[in-house]
């Protein structure tokens, strides 16, 4: 009975609610993690948009990669990403996740995050300030609302491509599911 128009209506409601209540799991790699406490506390207060911290990947919607990602940490980030439940989103903080940033020629940091896990939104800056982070969250909300934040769907579809990239950098990666 629920034809295309109907299901899309219901999906809109879900997206609307999803934007109003986001639980974020911040993976404190690199120097970005120190930007999050000011964003959470009284001066910038992200919880007024319904965004709050989550303790474990099972409860989280957004995975924040806040800084340079060494190969050892990438392995842990991949396990955590796969433990999170759909719909899930990834946000990359700072230039180190975009193109390697100031560690561009280091032998043990990855240069481009979205080769290994699908990233919905990057925030430029060599550690973006809380205002930029809030701007990023609002941008992510718009992407969720329009439905274009579909990194997790891409991950399932092009799983082999991501797996090949990951194995290239990490050697073998143990999978759970």
């Amino acid at each position, binding site marked *: 009975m629920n034809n295309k128009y109907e299901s899309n209506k219901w999906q809109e409601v879900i997206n609307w609610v999803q934007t109003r209540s986001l639980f974020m799991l911040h993976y404190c790699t690199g120097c970005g993690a120190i930007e999050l406490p000011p964003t959470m506390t009284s001066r910038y207060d992200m919880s007024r948009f319904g965004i709050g911290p989550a303790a474990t990947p099972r409860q989280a919607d957004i995975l924040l990669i806040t800084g340079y990602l060494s190969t050892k940490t990438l392995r842990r980030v991949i396990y955590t990403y796969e433990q999170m439940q759909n719909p899930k989103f990834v946000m990359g903080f700072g230039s180190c996740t975009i193109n*390697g940033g100031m560690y561009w020629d280091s032998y043990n940091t990855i240069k481009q995050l979205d080769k290994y896990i699908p990233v919905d939104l990057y925030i430029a800056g060599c550690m973006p300030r809380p205002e930029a982070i809030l701007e990023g969250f609002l941008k992510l909300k718009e992407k969720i609302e329009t439905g274009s934040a579909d990194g997790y769907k891409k991950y399932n579809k092009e799983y082999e491509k991501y797996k090949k990239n990951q194995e290239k950098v*990490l050697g073998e990666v143990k999978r759970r599911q």
Partner: protein
Amino acid sequence: MRSENELIKLLNRDLNLLSFKKLRKQNISIRFENEELVSGLNYLKSQNYIHLATISCVDWIEDNQFELIYQLFSYEDKISLSVKTRINRKTSKFVTIKNLWGVAKYYERDIHDFFGIKFTGNDNMDELILENWNEIPPMRKDFKTRQYVDKKYDWRQYHGQE
């Protein structure tokens, strides 16, 4: 509570130092031959230089030598002492001081990771910091970082760039 000069006089009298230098207040560096290093450290430990801050290594590729630096500190004298020695780069082998300071086990593993120096007597030499690393140890001067990065990772292609 010894001052720097008294310490230097004491060390000259008891040990045969290769050279010594007072870098600045409360900071002295001395140099040993390879063979006398362990006995020197033992003696220094008895002279209440009980704190081994770290073991670091410098790659002198021109004169084909590795330089091992043992940072010691004494709580009474408040002097930090760096004990240096040079070992041949080709053989890159030295004796462990695990029995003097337990923590040396991990410093030696770390140096083995990044410089490839094997410490005889320290049985556990597997990877501490790196993971599945099959190139030459990365901190050596002859390790071509840029070449490795180009091979391992690929750069972000900005539009218009080939």
